[in-house]
């Protein structure tokens, strides 16, 4: 089914201060195909998508649409040429209804007046949603009252309302639970049938086979290869993405596990996101929690850390019960947490590296209550050396660091607080490969020093690569437990999705 591409990208380059985000990238898209863009975080997938959409203007290279060279100065131009996007972060206005959101700024007007024709708008919105088999979505109530999957469908309806020829889907399933993903894929396949070209950005291996036709691999901003789905196995594909043998990426030295560090018994929360989780974690051990988004992993971490109060169950830290205690108490007893969204929860971005480093340990570093900037800087410099954080000094705001180095500051924060049980929630999200390997090496070293690490991650390869033991979590419960090397990527992936016991 060889045919002319509708979109061709030649030699595209784009630089940001300090990074060459795209380096002479090639890409093409045919009508009626789902072309998956894969690569590690920071590989340039989103940048490429944004250049195609007109959000970024490439420094070099050309984009051809139906054989004609195009040059977009804004997403508006892209839309005018039939290229629309469904973004990873929802662009819904919470207190407008579905129809208003779909037709924002393009509302049908009653002829001769400036008034919105709500009836027509409702009808049109319903028609689009019906074409997506989502006629049951209430288009009259604020979208805030709808669930995320419904909002996602409204996003797609919004994209379709532009009558596009090309749709860019940027991590569209990131906020969907597994139940919601298959119906979503149905819609994507339907769009494909209609001859729309779909650029699908995703980092979830499992999705490529289910939805993709072709795959283009990017790495460190460079074009690596375009291939058909099924041409390569998962492991080989990962090797392409990572650029080296995975066995080199994930370093896990064998070390002794001694004594229980953290245990939960039948942990439950008030919102029904965590329904009876029992896990144990030993000193010197890295335990992974594999599960899909919405499986309740982050919620469990929040319960253990004391941000939310549990509805039931118990938590023990070094054998001492800490159930329902405030974070300050739990932290005093040695727990640390690297939150999944480090910019939002992990760091005071405007503050310096030095300040962030002692954010938790302030009281123990300065027991008199009087702060010495010099001592503070010294401590921070120590951790910069220890963790190989790359920064000219420790007084600059952490906002100026790259993702990997920011994550190191968060780690330093907990190390300086002498935490010996640390929860890593999505520790390598948004971090490039080189920095990832450093984070892995660091985790390995911490475990070797006897610290206990609980790792939550959606990247299956890293869970398998780094963990001594893996819990599989689904719908708020632990559905399985496997030892390192006992299980393949596919098996765990299936278990995450289907919730079956993995091993006998």
């Amino acid at each position: 089914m060889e045919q002319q591409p509708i979109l061709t990208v030649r030699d595209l380059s784009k630089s940001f201060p300090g990074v060459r985000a795209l380096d002479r990238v090639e890409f093409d898209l045919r009508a009626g195909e789902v072309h998956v863009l894969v690569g590690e975080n920071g590989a340039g997938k989103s940048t490429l998508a944004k250049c195609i959409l007109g959000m970024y203007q490439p420094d070099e290279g050309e984009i051809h649409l139906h054989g004609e060279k195009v040059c977009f100065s804004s997403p508006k131009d892209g839309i005018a040429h039939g290229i629309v996007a469904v973004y990873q972060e929802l662009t819904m206005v919470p207190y407008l209804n579905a129809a208003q959101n779909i037709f924002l700024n393009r509302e049908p007007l009653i002829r001769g007046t400036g008034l919105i024709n709500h009836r027509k708008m409702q009808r049109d919105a319903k028609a689009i949603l019906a074409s997506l088999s989502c006629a049951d979505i209430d288009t009259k109530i604020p979208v805030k009252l709808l669930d995320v999957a419904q909002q996602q469908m409204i996003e797609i309806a919004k994209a379709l309302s532009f009558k596009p020829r090309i749709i860019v889907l940027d991590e569209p399933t990131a906020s969907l639970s597994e139940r919601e993903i298959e119906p979503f894929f149905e819609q994507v396949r339907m769009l494909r049938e209609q001859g729309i070209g779909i650029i699908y950005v995703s980092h979830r291996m499992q999705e490529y086979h289910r939805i993709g036709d072709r795959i283009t691999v990017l790495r460190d901003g460079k074009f690596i290869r375009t291939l058909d789905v099924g041409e390569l196995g998962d492991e080989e594909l990962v090797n392409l993405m990572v650029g080296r043998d995975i066995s080199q990426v994930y370093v896990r030295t064998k070390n002794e596990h001694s004594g229980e560090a953290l245990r939960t018994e039948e942990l439950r929360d008030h919102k029904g996101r965590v329904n009876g989780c029992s896990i144990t974690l030993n000193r010197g051990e890295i335990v992974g929690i594999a599960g899909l988004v919405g499986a309740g992993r982050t919620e469990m971490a929040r319960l253990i850390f004391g941000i939310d109060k549990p509805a039931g169950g118990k938590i023990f830290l070094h054998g001492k019960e800490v159930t329902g205690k405030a974070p300050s108490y739990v932290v005093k007893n040695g727990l640390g947490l690297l939150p999944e969204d480090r910019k939002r929860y992990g760091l005071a971005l405007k503050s310096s590296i030095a300040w962030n480093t002692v954010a938790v340990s302030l009281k123990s570093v300065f027991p008199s209550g009087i702060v010495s900037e010099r001592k503070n800087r010294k401590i921070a410099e120590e951790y910069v050396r220890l963790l190989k954080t790359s920064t000219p000094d420790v007084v600059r705001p952490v906002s100026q660091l790259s993702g990997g180095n920011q994550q190191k500051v968060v780690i330093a924060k907990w190390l300086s607080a002498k935490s010996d049980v640390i929860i890593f929630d999505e520790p390598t999200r948004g971090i490039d490969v080189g920095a990832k390997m450093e984070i892995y090496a660091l985790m390995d070293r911490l475990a070797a020093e006897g610290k206990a690490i609980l790792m939550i991650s959606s990247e299956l390869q890293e869970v398998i690569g780094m963990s001594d033991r893996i819990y599989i979590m689904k719908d708020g419960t632990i559905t399985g437990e496997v030892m390192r090397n006992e299980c393949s990527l596919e098996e765990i992936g299936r278990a995450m999705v289907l919730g079956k016991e993995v091993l006998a």
Partner: protein
Amino acid sequence: MTTKSLGKRIGSLPPAVWMIAVMLVFYGANTKNYFTASNFISILIQAAPLFVVACGQTIIVLMQGTDLSLGASLNMMTVVWVVLMQKSLPLSVALPLAMGTSVLAGYLNGLIVAKMKLPPFIATLGMQNILNSVALVASNGSSVYHEHAIYKIIAKSSFLGVPYILWITIGCFFLTMVLLKFTRFGARVISMGGNPESLKVAGYSPDLATIQAFTYTGFMTAVAGFLLACRVESGNPIVGNGFEFNSVAAVLLGGTSMREGRGGVGGTVFGVLLIQILKNGLVMMNVSSIYQTAIIGIVVLFAIMLDAYIKRRQEE
């Protein structure tokens, strides 16, 4: 509509509604001649300028801002209008010119917020000072008078039994409501408060939306200044002081939230009425003016706390 959604609707009414009900019962039981048409008309006439200002403020609060210059803008508008009439300009010229100053002030606010990226709080704080200066200079620091029939027509004469001042107020209410619910302008205001990114994605400049909103608020203030001047039959450089905060209070009491673009001008009606009915009743009950400020403060604070509490319960 099912009973459940009806129940939900009642539950989502701002607490101001309940507090008004309680006050009506309380005042009705404790004062003579409370439930008379003339008393309610007088409450409404008293409330009119604040309500019109609050219509404008609703727009700004929906966009997660506050406009602190509205009181000063009222001062300026009333003074400029009367002074222009003193200079024997006809009403048809003086009034549009004076209203134009308030609209211009709103436009400048929008410009400063959108283009200079100042937080609305600071931009309008600066503007407040500037407009007060204009009012003081134009009036030379005291009330200005000019005889004209228009005051009495607006404030006292009626059409179909309803004073003109109320017709204009009702007009402002419907205008704002229609703008919010039935025009693209309104959708943009709500998206600015809820998710400015969405507006960008839809290809509309948030800056432009900001400027439009502030300009409209300036226009509402101009109308309010007109009503206020007619009621006090003069121009006065301090007559509007406090309107900026009272209007924010009224908007919030009406259930409009400073987050997410939630709310609307319908609730503001109750917010303004709450304040005005409370004040009027205290006077009717002959409560000493010494205690009035404290009572009003406590009731308003209580209503705000109640609203915040209910909203948080709903979130959870």
